[in-house]
């Protein structure tokens, strides 16, 4: 099993609800553009944060944002108020978002997802329309290119075979 699938399976096994967002979600909808890491949106409030820290504990999570690559603390009190976690783990890189600009929290977006079976690992994936909303809110140059592709996919899908 690919490392990232093992990582997502681990989140599932610990009962963590999340949705895949970003470029990997784009791939699920038909994007041909490449991506290098997986982004998920989940709640970073208690008690979810504690469960997340437990799930990550044994895979050596490190904070990618810090030059010293400090290990992610096990104590949720030390991460109180954090909205995003950008991590390197033994199972690859993962960006964990507590909220998605333009869309909101996990609770706001969980009904705007599709459910996919990734080789026995069931995951929510942000739906195409909401992915476009999120990309528009992010507004970087690469997001504009992504939006152009996603809108082309949406147009072709609505036109039918």
């Amino acid at each position: 099993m690919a490392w990232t699938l093992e990582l997502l399976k681990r989140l599932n096994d610990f009962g963590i609800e999340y949705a895949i967002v970003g470029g990997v979600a784009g791939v699920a909808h038909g994007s041909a553009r490449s991506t290098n890491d997986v982004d998920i949106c989940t709640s970073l409030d208690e008690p979810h944060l504690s469960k997340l820290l437990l799930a990550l504990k044994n895979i050596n999570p490190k904070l990618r944002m810090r030059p010293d690559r400090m290990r992610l603390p096990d104590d949720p009190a030390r991460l109180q108020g954090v909205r995003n976690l950008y991590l390197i783990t033994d199972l690859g890189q993962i960006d964990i978002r507590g909220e998605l600009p333009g869309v909101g929290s996990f609770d706001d977006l969980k009904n705007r997802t599709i459910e996919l079976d990734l080789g026995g690992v069931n995951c929510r994936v942000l739906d195409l329309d909401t992915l476009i909303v999120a990309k528009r809110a992010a507004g970087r140059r690469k997001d504009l290119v992504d939006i152009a592709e996603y809108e082309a996919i949406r147009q072709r899908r609505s036109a039918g075979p």
Partner: protein
Amino acid sequence: MDTGNDLDPIALSQFPETDVTGDIDLSLIDYNLSLSPAERIRQHLEFAQFVEVVRRAGAKHYGVDARTSEETE
């Protein structure tokens, strides 16, 4: 007592450091450069394997592979 002041939630929550265009995640580049070429390729291949699983699951969900326009089972 460790008060956790080395973890500023606001700093941690900001998007990773990027170049002037905002398109290039410099922290990801720093991490990649900390790996050996063999480790980089292995990571890339591992992630490509995952992306292929996602692509196939998406094609099955929609009933058609967007890259080839072929119908899926």
